[in-house]
């Protein structure tokens, strides 16, 4: 056990699974880097260094640098998964899903159903998402609601280094296609992470705080923000439960409903654009299944319905912050 960053935790999960199972490969743009130039092997390790060190250990047979063509290499990964490998393909920014989406939702997500349950597609697509990186509107979106919408895909959003390692190992061992979304602002977050391999099951929410007044449901980077708010308000006598569902598909609806039944108040924090996102989905679930338990109207904390601005001041205004979460919690608590 030692402190590891979110980046190291994912890297360790990949390396340990590649050691354990020779069918696991990684592929993507500059996953090793250097284009074979002398002295430049493993020059990149992915654009933010998550796959660094894999190529020297596992070789170019298992760490594939691909052309800048998501259509081609995501399709190749789907085919590799359908024919016996366990590929982990890196879609550098989730914003690039547009050019490879048919491969994901019409092919990978449908094989099991189209082939009488006999086809398995153990594919993981790793992809960076989220604002706060000064990367403008084509490199800052969340887009996980779109994957969540497609039956046949599993959608994972880790919120801390411990979570990232266990969920990544689970994703690799899972026989269905998994979209694994890494918030780019979390990569340097650190916490204690076991050195040994371990798995965290999908569809089981984690309660990062337990309280009696307000339930906050949050995803990815919004989980540490919500924890911060819960800790602050605890001292003022407003006690919050923070639910990190870990996966948006499958979604642990039971835990969300149980927590709302206990607290009677709900704030959903979602960094995705506000129409048809996880906040609207969970609000609808609670309104339908637990309306009688609600002591106050549900509050959603989301960005406005606009592309992520490039101007730093506007980007800061766009992102749900601890201050906005705190205001929503105070509003539903009537405090």
């Amino acid at each position, binding site marked *: 056990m030692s402190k590891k960053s979110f980046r190291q935790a994912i890297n360790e999960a990949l390396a340990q699974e590649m050691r354990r199972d020779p069918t696991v490969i990684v592929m993507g743009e500059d996953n090793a880097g250097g284009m074979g130039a002398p002295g430049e092997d493993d020059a990149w390790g992915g654009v933010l260094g998550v796959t660094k060190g894999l190529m020297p250990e596992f070789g170019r047979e298992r760490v594939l640098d691909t052309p800048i063509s998501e259509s081609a290499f995501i399709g190749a990964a789907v085919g590799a998964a359908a024919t016996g490998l366990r590929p982990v393909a890196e879609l550098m920014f989730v914003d690039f899903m547009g050019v490879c989406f048919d491969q994901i939702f019409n092919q990978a997500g449908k094989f099991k159903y189209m082939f009488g349950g006999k086809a398995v597609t153990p594919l993981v697509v790793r992809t960076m998402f989220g604002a706060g990186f000064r990367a403008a509107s084509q490199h800052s979106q969340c887009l996980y609601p779109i994957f969540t919408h497609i039956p046949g895909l599993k959608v994972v959003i880790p919120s801390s280094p411990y979570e990232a390692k*266990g969920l990544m190992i689970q994703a690799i061992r899972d026989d269905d296609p998994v979209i694994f979304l890494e918030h780019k602002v979390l990569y340097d977050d650190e916490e204690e992470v*076991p050195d*040994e391999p371990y798995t965290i*099951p999908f569809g*089981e929410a984690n*309660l990062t705080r*337990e309280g009696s007044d307000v339930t906050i449901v949050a995803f990815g980077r919004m989980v540490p923000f919500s924890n911060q708010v819960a800790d602050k308000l605890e001292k003022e006598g407003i006690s919050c439960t923070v639910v990190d569902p870990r996966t948006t598909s499958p979604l642990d609806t039971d835990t969300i409903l149980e927590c709302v039944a206990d607290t009677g108040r709900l704030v959903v924090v979602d960094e995705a654009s506000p129409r048809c996102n996880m906040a609207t989905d969970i609000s609808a679930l609670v309104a339908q299944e637990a309306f009688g338990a609600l002591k106050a109207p549900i509050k959603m904390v989301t960005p406005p319905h606009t592309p992520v601005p490039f101007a730093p001041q506007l980007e800061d205004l766009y992102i749900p912050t601890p201050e906005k979460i705190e205001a929503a919690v105070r509003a539903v608590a009537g405090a």
Partner: protein
Amino acid sequence: MPKWGLAMTEGTVVAWHIGEGAEVGVGDDLLDIETTKITNVVESTRAGLLRRQVAAEGATLPVGALLAVIAAPEVSDAEIDAFIADFNANFEAVAAEIDASAPEPETIDAGGAAINVLRMGDAEGPPIVLIHGFGGDLNNWMFNQPMLAERHRVYALDLPGHGRSTKDAGAGDLAALSATFLAALDALGIEAAHLAGHSLGGAVALQAALNRPARAASLTLVASAGLGPDINMDYIEGFVRAGRRKEMKLVLQALFADPELVSRDMVDDLLKYKRLDGVERAITTIAEAVFAGGRQASVLGHRLHELGIPAQVIWGAEDRIIPAAHAKELPATVRAHVLEGAGHMVHMEKAGEVNALIEEIVAG
């Protein structure tokens, strides 16, 4: 502020048991401290008058911070004020030293098995070796090991399948576990030790002593397996099955007389342990080997007299995992202590009394 367990960095003062001016004896309850993992009482290590409660109720203080001043009546208030001021002025250096000298566990090769061991204290003479129970780890001795280490060399280790040791438990029976335990003593260069085992760890200690009598200087069996046929299989199966916080919390509450002692961190730590590769297989193998058919496979208590060494059993009267009645079915030479107000984790709930009993048997 004591350091209970490797992860503890600070504690919060819940309540004082005695007021300023009161007479204090060694082992008297001073105050309750809450950590993120557990709440426990701090006992006095000195006799005298409680002259000053330095730590206020509700205060959160780092490990090593000054909690109270105990002194003789003739010490003046001015001297006590000066002592407190001096202590606090030097505290940063003291805290840094405590931090730097904190013992770290190490992994040893016990006949091919990687076994995690934590050593505290460096006194001469036969050491004390502590063995945790089913599903536990060496941190279960957090209220015992540091206190015993003030006068003895004390080792605590993780059994195969547990803590940070190998997750290969082999056959998982007492023969396999005690063989690995004896190999760990060999690797540590320990000829003979005072063995103290809790629950499954007690049975391991007993089996090891029966196999190699020369290695045990004394035996302390705490809520021990191996002394009777009964075992609460709802607990064992519930522990193996529990994957969610809620289930695990309910299961763990059966371990304590006071179920409030089960904290979020305790539940989280166990869920994290259970998610590690190999753990499910290891604990299933051990449970099937040691508790086959819902009964304890090995009942060895009647053989205690063969050993000819001091032996004692300690039980919590409210043990819901292994009944305290097993303490009654032992040879007359074995001292039996049944402590009121404690459950299966009697060494945590009544740490002071258990520590005193271990000190006593070690003193001979």
